[in-house]
């Protein structure tokens, strides 16, 4: 790949290279449910967080090992438009590309350069305007409880379960419990028809089942469906919930070269109004 700049990394605070962008592109597409994204880079890796009100949050996390090259000075944080980022990664369509990311300093654009693998003489650079960074809500602290319910599920199976649920329903009710039903999702559709899917803890779809208490919580189906895109490409999903029903769906997306990208969704339960 042709090195166009004389000294590529000299004055940049963040520089990274990804060998195959397919998984990253899929991951970013799956969290584009809102326009504003918060990008945070540190020694731990790259995080991109998207929130919708105080009801759903998704964070994409790429550890340094998922990159061909990863260098960052201090902690960098800025906002950008998710659809612009997604459009940029899709410029060569489904063609396999490698990517270089560069960020100089606060106020500078994020520069992303795509290099298609099957043509050495073509490249595209996007300079994406960055904005001030807001602080994403920290939901993690609410899920440090030893009495959490934790279930590990195979990604494609869970995606199928969500898919089978009533499309017109506005709410989903989740039950997770050490007793039967171990894992049950119920929807109420039009004509008040009740539809539910129940999975036993012994099901082959369950990779691990560790529920300490019975938790029943309801969520807006629109928000559960936001997780769909990510779910379809995930290899495994960790479902965690605490006593008030704060739901965490932690997914792993795996690329062809075994690099892992994580997406963490937090969904706030609906409170009973009676």
């Amino acid at each position, binding site marked *: 790949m*042709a090195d*166009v700049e004389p000294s590529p990394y000299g004055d940049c605070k963040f520089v990274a290279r990804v060998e195959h962008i397919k998984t990253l592109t899929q991951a970013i597409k799956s969290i584009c449910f809102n326009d504003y994204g918060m990008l945070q880079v540190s020694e731990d890796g790259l995080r991109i967080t998207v929130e919708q009100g105080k009801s759903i949050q998704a964070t994409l996390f790429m550890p340094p090992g998922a990159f061909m090259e990863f260098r960052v000075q201090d902690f960098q944080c800025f906002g950008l*438009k998710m659809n*612009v980022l997604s*459009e*940029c990664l*899709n*410029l*060569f*369509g489904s063609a396999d590309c490698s990517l270089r990311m560069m960020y100089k300093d606060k106020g500078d*654009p994020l520069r992303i350069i795509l290099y*298609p693998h099957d*043509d050495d*003489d*073509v*490249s*595209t*650079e*996007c*300079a*994406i*305007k960055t904005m001030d960074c807001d602080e994403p809500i920290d939901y993690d602290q609410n899920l440090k409880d030893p009495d959490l319910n934790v279930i590990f599920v195979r990604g494609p199976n869970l995606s199928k379960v969500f898919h089978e649920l009533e499309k017109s329903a506005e709410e989903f009710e989740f039950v997770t419990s050490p007793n039967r039903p171990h894992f049950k999702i119920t929807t109420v559709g039009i004509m008040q028809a009740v539809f539910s899917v129940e999975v036993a803890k012994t099901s082959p779809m369950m990779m691990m089942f560790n529920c300490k208490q019975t938790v029943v919580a309801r969520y807006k189906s629109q928000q559960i469906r936001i997780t769909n895109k990510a779910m379809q490409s995930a290899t495994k999903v960790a479902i965690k919930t605490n006593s008030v029903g704060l739901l965490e769906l932690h997914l792993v997306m795996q690329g062809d070269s075994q690099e892992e990208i994580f997406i963490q969704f937090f969904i706030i339960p609906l409170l009973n109004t009676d």
Partner: protein
Amino acid sequence: MKFRALMQDPLYMKEFQAIVATLTKLAKDCVMILGSRQMHFIVNEDQSSSASPLVWAGIAAEEYFPEYRMEAAHPEQEYIVLGVSSANLGRALSVLRGGGVNSCKLKLQRIQFPCISVIASVLTSSSTEAREVVHDVPVTIIPCSDWSAYVVPRVPPSQLALGLPSLRLLKSLIDKLKNISPSLEFQANLDGELNVIATSEMSTVTSRFQKLLIRTVAGSQREASCSVDSRKASAFFGALQLPNEELSIGIDREHSIHLQIDVRQDVVLHSILPAVCM
């Protein structure tokens, strides 16, 4: 006024059909200028469409037509100029797309109205006899007094023209870039590099093509650039039905961009994209 031409080579018939199919995607109407040894098709000659570019094709008669005869209305005149619906002509020629066509005749006739009869001799699999598929495509005969409006455009002078070996990536990029910005800046330089730049409020996208062949250099400056309407550029690439991958891009600084596809020697497709303000 007489016009009669015959094609027999299956490859040339397919190419001729592909050229007309390209024009069909660009505009509803098309002008045919029949010369004694050359044929031209022009679409959007008045550039009134904001979304579709000026495109024309020049075909040397001897390339495609072993038999070609044109007699103008008056002996001093050099052309027959016809207006025709590109869709109708495209439909009439679509039979040439598949195989099994022995020959294709084009004949200017007046049945109840002036038309170009497209007569294809098609071999059917069931019998050894060929059957004739005839389409009478209505045409408007444009009188000599109006010809000044239908002149074959001149290729603009380029300060720099580069040859792109494969237009595939440029085509799909422009298709996406048109959603980012209404205008695209094309920059070419003497290092054989072409940059296509789309600027919006939230991003600047620069696509770089390197190691391109330099086709034309005029003047002493190292680079030439011009901004054009991105929809027009995308419409040109989107309309292409030809198998050719090579494309020539010529820049006339601040005036226009000239795109040229050499289908074969003496069969050339051109487009001019006028400069727009950024």
